[in-house]
């Protein structure tokens, strides 16, 4: 049987993590091709609906990447994201859904390596978890 290849949707802020992902490229750091990146201006603009939409449509994991605390281009967008994602995870947990499929990470524009490592690590952990069960759960 072919190895399970998780699919990750990433919402990255324009100023830090998206730029960090670009730096991973200019530095030619290799990471698994399982990730599809959606660029946003700020993690504060990540509506939890987007995360749910990705999970419902079959993403095995969602990565939200923003600026380190205190470094937000819009002052506090990353704090807003942190609050929202924390609440979302709590709610999902209540439904018996594995909250660790959602990763919120602070990766700065100069941390290309951290971005590559984070992606690789996330792919590894999702491989252990197996496919997103939401479709089956949905049927019930």
């Amino acid at each position: 049987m072919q190895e399970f290849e998780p699919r990750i949707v990433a919402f990255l802020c324009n100023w830090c993590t998206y730029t960090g992902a670009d730096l991973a490229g200019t530095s030619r750091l290799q990471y698994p091709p399982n990730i599809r990146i959606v660029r946003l201006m700020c993690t504060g603009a990540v509506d939890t609906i987007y995360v749910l939409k990705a999970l419902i449509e079959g993403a095995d994991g969602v990565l939200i990447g923003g600026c380190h605390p205190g470094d937000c281009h819009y002052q506090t967008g990353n704090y807003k994201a942190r609050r929202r994602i924390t609440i979302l995870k709590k709610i999902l947990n209540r439904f018996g859904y594995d909250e660790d499929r959602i990763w919120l990470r602070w990766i700065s524009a100069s941390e290309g390596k951290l971005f590559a490592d984070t992606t690789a690590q996330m792919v590894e952990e999702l491989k252990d978890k197996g496919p997103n069960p939401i479709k089956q759960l949905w049927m019930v």
Partner: protein
Amino acid sequence: MSKITLKIDDRQVSTESGSTVLEACQELGIKIPTLCYRKGLPSYGACRLCLVEVGERARTQLKAACTFSLQEGLVVRTNSEKVQRTRRIMAELLLARCPDSEKVKEVAAELGVTDTRFPKKNEDCILCGLCTRVCSELMKTGAIDFSGRGDTRKVGPAYDKHSPICMACGACQVVCPTSTATVEDVATRQARPIASDYNAGLVSRPAIYIPFPQALPNVPVIDREHCIHFLTGACKACEAFCPAGAIDYSQEDEVVEIEVGAAILTPGYCIFEAGQKLELGYAWYPNVITSLQFERLLSASGPHGGKIVRPSDLKAPKRIAFIQCVGSRDAERNYCSSVCCMYATKEAIISMEHEEDLECNIFFMDLRAFGKGFDAYYERAKELGVIYTRCRPSSVEEIEQTRNLRIGYTDEDNHFVTREFDLVVLSTGLRPPAEVKELAKKFEVELDSNGFALTSMFNPVESSRPGVYVCGPFSEPKDIPETVMEASSASAKAMALLTEKRGTLVTQKEWPPERDVSGQRPRIGVFVCHCGVNIGGVVNVPEVREYAKTLADVVFAQDNLYTCSIDTQESIKKAIEEYNLNRVVVASCTPRTHEPLFRETVRDAGLNPYLFEMANIRDQCSWVHMHQPEEATRKSKDLVRMAVAKARLIEPLYSMPIPVKSGALVIGGGMGGMTAALNLAEQGFEVNIVEREEELGGNLKNVHYLLGAEDPQRQLGEMILKVNNHPNIRVWMGANIKSVDGFVGNFKTAITQDGKEAEIEHGAVIVATGARERMPDEYMYGSEERVVSQRELEEKLARGEFEAKRVVMIQCVGSREGDRMYCSRICCSQAIKNALKIKEDYPETDVFILYRELRTYGFRERYYTAAREKGVRFVRYDVDQKPLVSAANGRLRIETKDPILGSMLQIDSDLLVLAPAIVPQDDVEDIAKMLKTPLTKEKFFLEAHMKLRPVDFSVDGVFLAGMAHAPKNVEETITQAEAAASRAATIISKAEYTPEAIVCSVDEDVCAACGICVSVCSYDAPEIVTVRGKRVSKINAALCKGCGACASACPSGAVQQLGFRAKQLFEMVSAALE
């Protein structure tokens, strides 16, 4: 060359004659294994892995693709059973020759061969001849060649002796697929790698290189001093390699003449050559490095990817020592480099965050954490376990066996101690680069004995020559915020000088009329970029292009070698016209660098610039999946599909320019406020100064002399005169701000004066409200009249009322402890200034300064030295053992512990002088509330960014100067005030303010006026208003920064971020997971 057509793997191919089958296949993205082919070198056909089948039916032959030329009508099969079988045998033969070579194993494995049936020979070299060809053909040297025949054939220098003609260029080593060829085996001389400047010499770099990852433009440069081509005329490998043909060896430096009205010199700094300090061992020991090298080690983009390893054995050190003041504060360089204490602290903190069980020990003399927020950071470092040892180490010696280092120093108890460390980091000081001497000569500006530019206290960015300004560490060592302030200040000076000429060199670009695409069905054009081999070498670009054509609404798709080239831009415009495209998608690099260019292209073709979308298939695909071409191609298709999905829903966006009121309001009439106002007035803007007191001058009124010869009262008097007489300035004395309404470019402020109220309109605000001394409540201040503050002492000295045989000064009274965990910055210099004045006018008076750290940063150090020479006695005290003050026998008795003597010191004194803390004005909170600007915990105004935007606020149109920001000296206040004026001028010098186009907007039909958007916004952009009788939220586009926080918070979806609408993102997510 002519066009020929041939058939490769059943595909009709039309290509240029003159190339080989291998080259044609590579262009088509057909992968053919090879070990002996390299672009730019003549083909040799040695490895036989690239065999292909040519000819038709029974008349086929196996040929090496790398040497077989294309012919008209040729039929080539690259993957037939026969080809596969033969390649596998070749791989087996190679594997038999070199069974341990990783590269051979890798290539064989790709062909499905993991073992060989032939007898193993255990050689290293596969005789591919790449090294001999590169040596003779490219380098024109011929230091190595084949010798022997049959199974004794081998590669080496003549007679197997090291060759004197070898240049040790290392080309053979670079091209060798099995890593067998080495320079050491051939050359008589030693290979000398070129040290990488970017990595502070820790690793080497090639002679053609991109100076650093974020370089602009991000293109390689050739180091002519080391490039073989420039040295011998040979090589030209890069020219052969570059598919864009971008290498041009004939380029020369040009002399360009430009006429300017002002010049700003910013040559920056160099670090002190640590090798000069022989006792610290940098010249000999590999594990003694400079702080800049350590900074590179810490960096994720550094030589070891952010892993802290020491140079001798690449092992992680467990004990790191930082030695401060290397090349600062010594006899030759009698200045403090100002930044080293903090960068060492930062490096220590980061290292300890990186590695567990790491010990960081900082050896220092005075910890000069004088900047905003620095002392709190220093305290945090101590909490995290950074060890601070007060001493100046006298020696660093290497322990031969372990290559560890032994540091010898005298500790505070006067004992000589040695301690062992794994790594020693020297905090090297700052000095001007050597080239500044020539620069100064060209510009005729004067330098001081250390090579820093001469400036004066009241004109901190003016050089000795009018019209030539300097900023940054060129005039004095300084940190980033001060440098940024000086840069803005220098531009303010230049703008004031050149006011009449402002805007005269600007030409407006003419745009064609914009096409109305409303109501049209999307007609999308997709342009997929090869980016030379950057994308095309990994991703199958033609396949992606063909795929794009299958997507709904895509009416046109093409691939381009370089989409950003001028001719492709033209072809995009042509395609927009020809196919009536109304959306454009480019799949290439990152929108961060290229979106503006492509937006301009589509605008040039008559489309709204926001009808454009990008798919990042290079930085986030081909470059990061270089060894997975199939997956990368699949991912590129996904990314194109996502971009097209969004493109279907994108809409034209506009930003509506808002008219700007040209004047400025300056709050505060001290030195900072006046400086800012005068600069703006000189630039031709109207300025209103609001001062709550009845006279101008602020704190400087109480300053009677300075370190240095300048007379502050004369300077202040001149400034007040200029301000009062300037036709563009109106001063409101004894006035207060009642309210501030409006936003950037359009403020309306109510002022109260003498019970009357006035209203002024202005485009920008400068906050220069200053700070004040905190009245001490310790050391008997207030109850004993012989206890005075430094300011009161200065007053006495200036009036000639000073009378004392012995003076004791206590520093840090109320600063750096408790709620005021910050340094008041000016008091050390102030104490030394007053001490020097006493020593000058009353030489027989004894002066004692009791201090915690002496923070005479920058050139102030010289006065510290002078004070010690004049006999001022400095005694350090600890915060947990403060001096005790009592009145005894008609004198004041001060008792303090002298850490050098180790015992209590009793000083009977006639006068005790305290250095009180600098605290914010009492009404800052009111002003901050009116301006909607944030404050720090200590109630100083909080700038937009501590380092990079030190005079801006997060609120547009409001700027900051002077002690309202943090305690600072008069020259720093002047710099920041001019910087604030410069920043304000960027707004009020324009007739209009163009806000972001990507902003949030409200669908009023859906909005329920719940106000969540109002509470979420950091910029006060949304407001609840009544429109046609309905309460709705309205977003002020002038204030909106387009972060989208309100859109994601809106419970009804009424607020949408333009360019990132929820439905656009939904479509992207669905497309990603299709």
